[in-house]
């Protein structure tokens, strides 16, 4: 005979009514809370490139997008490097989710099928499955909470503690403890219910004869406990009188069953009274929890998946600009940015990944996000006038200036917050107010005046080509296949110039048709934009775009990842493909245009430049080139998307070190390379990296122990050509 889930077992009628009164109240409170928070997102401006939010939402419900959303939102895929966090999150989220879904299913079972139709879904084998699922996930949830407690109170990671923004090891305690109580009271209530079943079974077994057994059941109020129609009551009564179990599925709820055994010694009255009490506690705590979600950091249950769904589809290297003069208060941010700060779970992964933070600079990307979010929460959705400034006491200038805009924070953020964009927006306000670091001011003035940060004459830009025994074409005068946009460091820095020439020789050797903009090239403005000088960026872009439009070329080439990023992602005027030289070298080697004559037997490691790797996903080309020249690559622990910035980005290269800094990011990185056994050479693919790491090798006292070389230099070495033969090449191609 089929059995079903007991409904409202041992719950008096008045309690049932109370429950039904409370459900809508709780749901209304929850909805009101969500509305209260979500409305604040629309204090912000419209998002550039997004016409309307409803349309965006519609577009987001697209199989491809949802396929990308699901792993990140439902399975926290961005936590995968941290297995402990991933498992803990799965346990808590999916424990809660299954228990919630189970409760919801039980409600449907009871209110939508049983009450009107006297029919239950949760019966038979399906009910057994339901029971075991809920018990298992209840245990999973408690284990997950245990992991959280272990991490918060035994491991005590630094990233979960920040006095300034109120992030502390205890911030999640009320919520997590309540979840734990809900789970525990759920099990206890189940156990007490099962224990009562044991008592009933024992009494029924003790009674002689069917009538007596039925009488025992009636005396114990079994029929009242069932809350089902008379016919189905009869079926159950007969089944149990016949020797069936009161709760045949109890064995499928091992935790409840075990607790039932434990509570069995109590009297029936005690069990019933306790059950009612615990049942109430469970219900009230669960209701309270739901109602409080929008008011606590648990709101990320809503905001984080929403943010991941509505995340920008732009490439990471394209900086969105909503307000050129920068962000003063929360209303200057866009709705997407406000959603992002609200989606933040305070987890501090960004802080751990941040090179500035690791080296003792005064920046935690999480604290910046939290400072904005706390101001957002204090701002009424119907704000009259300007909300208070986000600057100075909330977000300090030194925090903003510490950022290398390396995007490590954004890359690692489990909920897709774009910290660098927020930081640049806030920086723009400082620039607008003229509050810039002295070194930065010099660099910006030089950009304004000369189009380069070196304060060098624009006429000297092509001077690096002078020592070459061949001339490079002027792309303004004759058509070329590749227009080489050289960049500042490659053109002006004495240490880099030789490397630039080496790359020119390699390209010459491979017969690549390249030309330059000569003295008309100006800095592409990638870092200027990230400093927050949007007007200056626009000016540089305008000038370069004008020169580019006057030149004839098929593709753009550069050795500088910063230039690469700007040309590729931020120059709308540029339609030609943009190549980083590592990509071109890879192409030339694979296509056979570049033949290597010497295998280099070096053991090397490779530093992924932020703007090549994390921003533009170029990881494989340089590694293939390293393989082709014969080197053995030993990866640093932090490589690929997890690469550690040299500290030069976002204008940092022109700023003074923070007084609190313990080391420079470049020194930290060089130490990482030095720790690798047998590595002789740190290979770079960025002019700024060359400068930064060569300095760092000196300052950490590792001169002679680690060579810093550009990828192009290794290719040149493996060409096995001498300068004399270069001259021959020059002659033969002349």
């Amino acid at each position, binding site marked *: 005979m089929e059995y079903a889930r007991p409904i409202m077992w041992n719950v008096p009628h008045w309690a049932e009514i109370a429950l039904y009164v409370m459900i809508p109240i709780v749901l209304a409170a929850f909805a009101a809370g969500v509305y209260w928070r979500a409305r604040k997102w629309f204090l912000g401006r419209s998002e550039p490139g997004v016409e309307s939010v409803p349309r965006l939402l519609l577009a987001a419900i697209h199989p491809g997008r949802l396929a990308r959303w699901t792993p990140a939102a439902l399975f926290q895929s961005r936590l995968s490097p941290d297995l402990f966090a991933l498992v803990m999150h799965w346990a808590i989220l999916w424990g809660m989710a299954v228990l919630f879904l189970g409760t919801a299913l039980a409600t449907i079972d009871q209110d939508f099928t049983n009450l009107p139709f006297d029919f239950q879904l949760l019966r038979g084998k399906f009910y057994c499955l339901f029971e075991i699922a809920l018990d298992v996930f209840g245990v999973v949830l408690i284990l997950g909470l245990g992991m959280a407690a272990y991490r918060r109170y035994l491991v005590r990671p630094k990233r979960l503690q920040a006095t300034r923004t109120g992030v502390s090891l205890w911030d999640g305690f009320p919520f997590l403890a309540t979840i734990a109580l809900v789970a525990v009271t759920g099990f206890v209530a189940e156990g007490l219910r099962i224990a009562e079943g044991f008592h009933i079974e024992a009494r029924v077994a003790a009674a002689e004869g069917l009538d007596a057994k039925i009488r025992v059941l009636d005396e114990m109020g079994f029929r009242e406990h069932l809350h089902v129609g008379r016919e189905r009551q009869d079926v159950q009564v007969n089944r149990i009188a016949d020797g069936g179990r009161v709760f045949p599925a109890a064995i499928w709820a091992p935790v409840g069953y075990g607790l039932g055994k434990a509570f069995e010694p109590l009297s029936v009255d005690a069990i019933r009274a306790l059950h009612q009490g615990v049942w109430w506690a469970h219900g009230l705590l669960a209701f309270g929890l739901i109602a409080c979600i929008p008011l606590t950091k648990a709101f990320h249950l809503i905001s984080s998946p929403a943010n991941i769904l509505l995340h920008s589809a732009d490439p990471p290297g394209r900086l969105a600009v909503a307000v050129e003069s920068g962000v003063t208060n929360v209303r200057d941010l866009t709705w997407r940015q406000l959603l992002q700060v609200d989606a933040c779970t305070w987890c501090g992964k960004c802080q751990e990944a941040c090179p500035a933070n690791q080296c003792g600079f005064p920046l935690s990307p999480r604290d910046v996000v939290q400072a904005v979010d706390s101001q957002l929460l204090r701002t009424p959705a119907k704000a009259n006038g300007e909300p208070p400034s986000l600057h100075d006491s909330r977000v300090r200038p030194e925090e903003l200036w510490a950022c290398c805009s390396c995007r490590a924070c954004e890359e690692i953020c489990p909920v897709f917050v774009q910290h660098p964009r927020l930081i640049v927006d806030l920086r723009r306000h400082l620039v607008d107010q003229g509050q810039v670091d002295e*070194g930065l001011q010099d660099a910006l003035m030089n950009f304004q005046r000369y189009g380069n940060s070196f304060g060098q004459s624009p006429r000297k830009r092509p001077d690096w080509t002078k020592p070459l025994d061949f001339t490079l074409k002027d792309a303004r005068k004759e058509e070329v296949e590749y227009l080489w946009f050289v960049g500042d460091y490659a053109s002006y*820095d*004495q240490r880099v110039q030789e490397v630039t020439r080496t790359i020119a020789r390699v390209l010459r050797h491979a017969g690549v048709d390249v030309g330059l903009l000569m003295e008309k090239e100006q800095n592409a403005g990638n870092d200027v934009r990230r400093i927050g000088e949007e007007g200056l960026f626009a000016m540089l872009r305008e000038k370069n775009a004008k020169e580019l439009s006057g030149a004839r070329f098929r593709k753009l080439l550069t050795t500088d990842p910063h230039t690469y990023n700007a040309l590729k992602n931020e120059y709308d005027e540029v339609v030609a493909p943009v190549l980083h030289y590592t990509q071109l070298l890879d192409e030339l080697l694979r296509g056979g245009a570049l033949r290597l004559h010497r295998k280099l037997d070096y053991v090397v490691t490779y530093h992924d430049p932020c703007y090549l790797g994390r921003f533009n996903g170029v990881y494989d080309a340089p590694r293939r080139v390293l393989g082709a020249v014969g080197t053995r690559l030993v990866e640093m622990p932090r490589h690929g998307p997890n690469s550690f910035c040299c500290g030069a980005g976002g204008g940092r290269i022109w700023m*003074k*070190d923070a007084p609190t800094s313990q080391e420079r990011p470049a020194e930290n990185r060089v130490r990482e390379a030095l720790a690798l056994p047998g590595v002789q050479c740190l290979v770079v693919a960025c002019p700024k990296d060359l400068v930064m790491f060569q*300095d760092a090798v*000196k*300052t950490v*006292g590792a001169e002679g122990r680690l060579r810093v070389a550009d990828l192009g230099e290794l290719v040149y070495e493996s060409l096995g050509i001498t300068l004399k033969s270069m001259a021959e090449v020059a002659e033969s191609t002349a």
Partner: protein
Amino acid sequence: MAKDVLVLAEVYRDALADVTWELLAAGRTIASATGGQVLALVLGPNGAAHAPALGAADRIMVVDDPRLADYAPGPYVAALQEVTAAEQPRAVLLGATSIGWDVAPLLAARINAPLVTGCKEIQPEGEALRVATSFCGGKMMAEVRVDGAPAICMVLPGSFRPADAAGQAKIEPRKLPSPLEPGAVRFDGWVLPEAGDVDITQQDVLVSVGRGIQQKDNLELAENLAGALGGAVCASRPVIDQGWLPATRQVGKSGMTVKPKFYLALGISGAPEHQEGMKGADLIIAVNTDPQAPIFDIAHYGAEVDVLDLLPALTEAIEAKRG
């Protein structure tokens, strides 16, 4: 025709300005061409006390007036004007100092006399003067012909070999016929730099050490040299990073920007970050074993030796010179 040359022997905080002896030497070149005399003018109540150091002049005039006790442009220019009117010199020489930059042009405007700044060489040419002057940040020289008298020349310190103090000049106290006007600009007290660790930005002489110093113990050699030169020791970033000197002594991008009269770079390769902090020094001498070190690009003089060998020799030579 006027033959004499008037030199303002500037007194700053009870001492004659260093440039004074250069002015006297320059004055001698001009005056001797036509048999004129070099007149030194000292302004201030205690002026006579400085006379013994001004032996290179033929005559020493002291204007002893309480209003000249501290510098103020009004009385200074009035006194200069009176003496100039009385002596009718062919040239008035002043140093390119804080006071010189005030009074030279003010006097020139007052008496409508020609003025030349940045003088590095002054040669008489008949009745005129031919002055070589440095301008455009030292990137250009101009040869200027000055016909009128008196020619007011502001001399760049370090342009002339200072005159020896030897000689026996007589002090001529000058009472000015008209009393000095107080003027609208009044001296109101000195503001002295705060005491503390040595402020390397305020030192005239800096002995700067880099990686080439090798060990902390070797800093003593640099300290000894700095002591002999009357300067201070500073360093490039690697030395500071080692904790051998406090961060207040760091020169360069992440440290201080210094503009001393003399910067001795010892064992510093001269990365651009370092150059940024010291390239404004008047005289840079670099010592490094690496002939390719970029520091030699901006140094005026260089030596390719080990700093640890040179340091004791240099300290000894300076002490010997000082006697």
